């Protein structure tokens, strides 16, 4: 039996850790490991990029599934790749990009596993035209609570397939996945950047122009208030063609070698990010952005994964950690979004990176987060005075407007907020209970948000 460690596990925000037995497993021994799960159950954990407690299981078993990108099977004709759930998007891109392919959806960091991408139904800058990760999954192979391995697809056990997408790991351990891949001609993106002077301006620009681009996102300076409220940088782009690359480029068109420039040391006893430092950074970044620039070439890491340039950036928030707040405000409820942005900006909460994105159509998954509307994402140091009460207040504004929380980011909200935000929760619970009647799959998030009944 492989070695079992007792570990304190937390999310990327480094808050609310819990202790669990952490067990490295592979395809061959995972079923046996699960059979040995204690009363508190078992959960697969990827690279721990969920911000809250989605990938931890206090008092239970947490499984680290090994992944080998080298074993990925790329079918060029069908434009699909079959890859182990433990493989990261980083490793998969190193295989795909040189061969002229890209993942159908990537979040802002490439350090998430394929299993995590499915379980959180991650979305990226192309949601408005291409949906979320789950839209591009053709097949899932998953270990069930009874020890059997099930094959799932939109036509094979479709209920369980869609319940697993966005299912936060609580329907089983995903073993491997077949996904679409997008053909690309180069490893660069061609990007148009615009500055918007306030929130109304950026929302108008996004509504009018997003659909002309595959990738679109806005970065908001939340430290700006008054008539500058919601001033933003809108960045929209597409994979660059060979032609767009031009004749004066260096190296092969599909060259791909992302690297981490610098790493934050793991022991910072204070938060380097406070109101003063964030305000200064935001102002400088905003001034640096062009008023209007078209056709700029950026590398894949620059355009999709800027935060990955700094290793362990979450450590900069110090021992108290930080929380990420990400909510959906549906189409037609723009006033609620305005209220949320205004409240956050006037509170002076130091949000370093605040993102606004327009979402397109939802997929059939009962717990999937994206739906037509707007999603706002921000990070705030956890120790910020009055933050808890303010976020609970904003939750009510969002929920009253028919919005909801993204569970992969959540670290503070309540079971009530999930019941209100996800009307198909009971449907999901019924599907989960049908394949996991004893409650083998458990997580801290599942217990905190009332997704599952605690088995005690």
């Amino acid at each position, binding site marked *: 039996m492989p070695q079992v460690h007792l570990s304190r596990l937390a999310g990327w925000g480094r808050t609310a850790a819990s*202790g669990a037995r952490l067990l490295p497993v592979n395809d061959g021994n995972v079923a046996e490991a699960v059979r040995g799960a204690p009363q508190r159950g078992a959960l697969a954990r990827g690279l721990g990029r969920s911000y809250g407690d989605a990938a931890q299981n206090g008092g239970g078993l947490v499984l680290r599934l090994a992944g080998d990108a080298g074993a990925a099977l790329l079918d060029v004709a069908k434009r699909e790749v079959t890859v182990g759930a433990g493989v990261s998007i980083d490793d998969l891109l190193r295989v795909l990009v040189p061969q002229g392919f890209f993942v159908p959806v990537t979040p802002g960091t490439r350090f998430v596993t394929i299993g995590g991408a499915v379980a959180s139904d991650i979305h990226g800058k192309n949601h408005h035209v291409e949906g979320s990760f789950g839209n591009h999954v053709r097949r899932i192979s998953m270990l069930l609570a009874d020890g059997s391995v099930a094959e799932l697809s939109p036509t094979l056990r479709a209920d369980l397939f869609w319940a697993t997408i966005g299912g936060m790991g609580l329907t089983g351990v995903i073993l491997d996945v077949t996904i679409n891949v997008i053909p690309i001609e180069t490893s660069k993106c061609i990007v148009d950047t615009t500055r918007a002077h306030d929130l109304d301006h950026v929302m108008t620009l996004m509504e009018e122009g997003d659909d002309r681009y595959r990738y679109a996102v806005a970065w908001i300076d939340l430290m700006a208030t008054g008539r500058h409220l919601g001033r933003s940088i809108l960045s929209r782009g597409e994979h660059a063609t060979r032609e767009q690359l031009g004749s004066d480029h260096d190296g092969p068109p599909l060259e791909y070698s992302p690297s981490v420039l610098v790493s934050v040391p793991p022991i910072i006893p204070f938060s380097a990010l406070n109101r003063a430092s964030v305000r200064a950074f935001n102002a400088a970044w905003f001034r640096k952005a062009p008023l209007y620039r078209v056709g700029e070439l950026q590398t894949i890491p620059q355009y999709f994964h800027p935060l990955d340039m700094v290793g362990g950036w979450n450590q900069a928030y110090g021992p108290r950690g930080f929380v990420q707040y990400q909510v959906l405000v549906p189409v037609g409820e723009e006033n609620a979004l305005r209220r949320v942005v205004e409240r956050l900006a006037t509170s002076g909460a130091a949000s370093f990176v605040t993102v606004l994105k327009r979402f397109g159509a939802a997929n059939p998954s009962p717990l999937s987060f994206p739906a037509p509307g707007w999603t706002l994402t921000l990070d705030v140091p956890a120790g910020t005075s009055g933050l808890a*009460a303010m976020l609970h207040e904003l939750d009510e504004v969002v929920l009253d407007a028919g919005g909801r929380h993204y569970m992969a980011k959540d670290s503070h909200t309540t079971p009530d907020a999930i019941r209100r935000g996800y009307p198909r929760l009971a449907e999901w619970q019924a599907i989960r209970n049908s394949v996991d009647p004893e409650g083998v799959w458990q997580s801290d998030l599942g217990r905190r948000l009332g997704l599952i009944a605690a088995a005690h």
Partner: protein
Amino acid sequence: MQNSFGEPQTIVLLGGTSDIGLAIVRELESAALRHVVLAVRNPDSAEAQSAAAGLRSPKVEVSVMAFDAVLSDTHSAFVDSVVAAVGDLDVVVMAFGVLGEQSAFDADPASAARAVTVNYSGAVSAGLAVAARLRKQGHGRLVVLSSVAGERVRSSNFVYGSSKAGLDGFAQGLGDSLEGTGAKVLVVRPGFVHSSMTAGMSAAPFSTTPDKVAEATVKALKSGARTVWTPGILRVVFSVLRHLPGALFRRLPLG
């Protein structure tokens, strides 16, 4: 499970009519709170029922359960029954204790032994029972109400003082033993607190109130501290007092 702001969903107060304990529960209230369990010797007493009524709200369920600090044999089963009723224990506050009066203890030694059984032995079995559950959960916080009276025991009430000295050491050891499990212990050392327990007594210097103790406690819980003195200045005061020669210490009017 508590959230990233340290807001608990479930609080258990052992010694459910304690002024300080109830102040801590109120300070921990948030939109996340769902269950409060008040553990008292007599659940039907007016005091217990009114404490529960004061905390009850549309979102928060408050139950009153029978718990006797002296009956150590019942403590493990008690913890199990609380878990069966409300699920994971996020914050448990140990707030039971007997102050008594030194002259009464001098006249009736058996009564002194009973008092320290509540304050120390009962806390040991209850603390261990709770810690076993927190270990099993992989998370949770145990708050132990110690006292500066245990930091250097005075003749004015050395029965109480020595029981708190024992409790303090036990709580620190328990906290250390939980290292790495995800669960933590917070030892709270209040100075003289104006409460029903000290009604009629003259206050010592650097006294405080249940609400101020609660504020300091919750702040310490959220920052991850293992011990907290309240008021904070007592940490400095006692680091001096601890080293004072006995002749001087005995002459100090410390209340």
